[in-house]
């Protein structure tokens, strides 16, 4: 039995040492944080918040990604209230429709079609809220058009923009830009070229705000 306790103690010590090493390595190298680049002018993308806000957060997201949906439906309202409505942050939405999500491009096109009528953010919020309804639909247009109607948009104009794929090339360009720029998952939040994940966003914004003071 003594040998067993010795083995247990050795594993515990080795485990703690590994954890400490992994943590030290990470805190020592902030360069370990992915750097994201973009060639797309940010003022061409949908954004919310004051244009001269001290911090710009670029969100790389996919409308069909469940994690993006969780962020949009559970965390985003808090970020909007605490940072965007108070003028501290401008949030820019950068499409990154992932290839494994069959309706992601169509949803991005729908959001852009709503943006033509000045309703990108309400439509963005509705798409995420109803994600389970349309994500596996073989014909999502009927649902997308119904959401446009729900927001009192002109259904005819919405369908015309959607059906003519007015925004598809822009969305594909954004996909390529995300991929080339080093983004490998959604949602990814970029502040001053550094990538953060949803659970790190508040801390990252607070740190960036302190640095700008």
């Amino acid at each position: 039995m003594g040998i067993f306790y010795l083995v247990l103690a050795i594993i515990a010590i080795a485990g703690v040492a590994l954890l400490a090493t992994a943590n030290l390595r990470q805190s020592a190298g902030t360069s370990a944080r992915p750097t994201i680049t973009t060639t797309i002018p940010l003022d061409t993308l949908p954004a919310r918040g004051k244009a001269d806000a001290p911090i710009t957060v670029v969100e790389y997201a996919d409308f069909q990604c469940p994690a993006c949906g969780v962020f949009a439906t559970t965390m985003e309202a808090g970020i909007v209230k605490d940072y965007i409505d108070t003028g501290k942050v401008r949030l820019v939405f950068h499409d990154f429709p992932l290839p494994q999500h069959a309706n992601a491009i169509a949803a991005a096109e729908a959001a852009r079609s709503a943006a033509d009528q000045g309703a990108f953010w309400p439509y963005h919020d509705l798409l995420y809220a109803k994600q389970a309804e349309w994500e596996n639909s073989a014909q999502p247009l009927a649902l997308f058009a119904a959401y446009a109607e729900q927001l009192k948009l002109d259904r005819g104009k919405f369908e015309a923009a959607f059906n003519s794929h007015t925004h598809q090339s822009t969305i594909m360009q954004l996909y390529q830009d995300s991929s080339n720029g080093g983004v490998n998952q959604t949602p990814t939040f970029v502040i001053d070229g550094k990538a953060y994940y949803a659970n790190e966003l508040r801390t990252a914004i607070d740190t960036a705000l302190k640095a700008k003071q």
Partner: protein
Amino acid sequence: MSGCGLLPAGRYMTMQTQDAPLPRMAAALLALLGLLDAAYLALERITGGLIACPVGGGCETVQSSAYALLFGIPVAFIGVAGYALLLVVAILSLQSSNLGGISLDALLLALASIALLAGIYFMYVQVALIGAICFWCAIAALLDLLIWLAALMNWRSNRQGAMKPPLADHM
């Protein structure tokens, strides 16, 4: 030289009479591995670091999802507490068969069952609700299953031992 004194009743009751410690040793070892796994996720949660994801790449997606919190507490923290408790109970069960009148074998099995149910629930959440699998959470779920099997084997073998007639060995 003193004679063979009768052991105090309390001490006699807590003496280890079981002779198959392997499942409890396995449970202790697996609980320690689970503790290290959960501690890694908890540490990254505290420091806001990026989680190394050897397989799948879904670790950050899962850990940054709303499901990574249970009643406002990070699931990784609950995991650390749960595995620490399992480890303590498994080690205690190697020393004694009961504690304060509670059978440690039954307690170990009860805790392992709760851990297994939690493991199954979180695998369901990852696959069905988040659409991404966190490698470290999958490892934890596998450990939960193995701990439960060890606790079940231990409970069954000791229960069978306890049900033997007192003089069976002399017949």
